[in-house]
């Protein structure tokens, strides 16, 4: 089975697996290391989608997944992923989950309140808030 595979396809699959796994790993690592809800959503919600899309491409190159099916799946992932992370971030902001070390908050300014969040450590003050 292995010997019948096109070497070009194998190289593509190998690259896609390595890069896709790398970005999935980054997503998990970011989720653990980053400090608050908003920053964690960056890692979990999007970098991981990128990883999953590449792994799906690898499955097309060497596995039995059809190209059309994979493209539809990737499109659905890419459309639904940002919608989910936006919904979570918006809900977190509305319920007042604090941002850690926020440097700037244009949304709070528009709503006519100063930085609404408790600032656990001193944000660098040389930036406009």
């Amino acid at each position, binding site marked *: 089975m292995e010997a019948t595979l096109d070497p070009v396809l194998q190289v593509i699959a190998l690259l896609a697996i390595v890069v896709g796994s790398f970005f999935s790993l980054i997503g998990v690592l970011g989720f653990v290391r980053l400090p608050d809800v908003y*920053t964690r959503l*960056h*890692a979990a919600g*999007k970098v991981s989608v990128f990883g999953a899309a590449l792994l799906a491409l690898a499955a097309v190159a060497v596995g039995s997944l059809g190209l059309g*099916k994979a493209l*539809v799946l990737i499109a659905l992932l890419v459309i639904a992923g940002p919608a989910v992370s936006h919904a979570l971030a918006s809900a977190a902001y509305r319920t007042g989950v604090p941002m850690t070390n926020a440097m700037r908050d244009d949304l709070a300014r528009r709503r006519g309140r100063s930085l609404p969040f408790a600032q656990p450590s001193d944000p660098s003050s040389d930036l406009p808030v």
Partner: protein
Amino acid sequence: MLAYLRLVLICLVLFLALTENAEPANIVLGLLIGVLVALVVRPAPDLLSIRRLPLVLFNLARYTLWLAVDIIRNGIRVARIVLDPKLPIRPGILAIQSEMKSELGIALNAHAITVTPGEQVVEIGEDGVLYTHCLDVVASAESAEAAQRTRRRLMEGIFR
């Protein structure tokens, strides 16, 4: 009526791509699902005309390609931040002026920003301002205006 037909066809193609099975029974099933979806969704008429379809598809492909490059570039940036032992994040919320006219345009604009690693729309103002949470608000504030101009130019090719 035409809008309904178009939606049914799109659903059918999606269904056939997902099931990878072009038997008559499966096509009938896909049509039924398409009709069901169309009845629930109630598509707005005249979203785009058939005559402009090739141009719109071309612009859509160009937009998707630009978005893919943007995602990869920012993905690498975020990966570098996460892997850095010092974790050099400067989080904050930045207001980006969308200036798209239709609701669909603003939604697509918000999606384009959110799908890019390191930036994500938290709230949309009534005036179409996108309040965007950034991992590195200082760097994003510098590049946001130019990026938004490119995004708007590409998206206007799709909608008008």
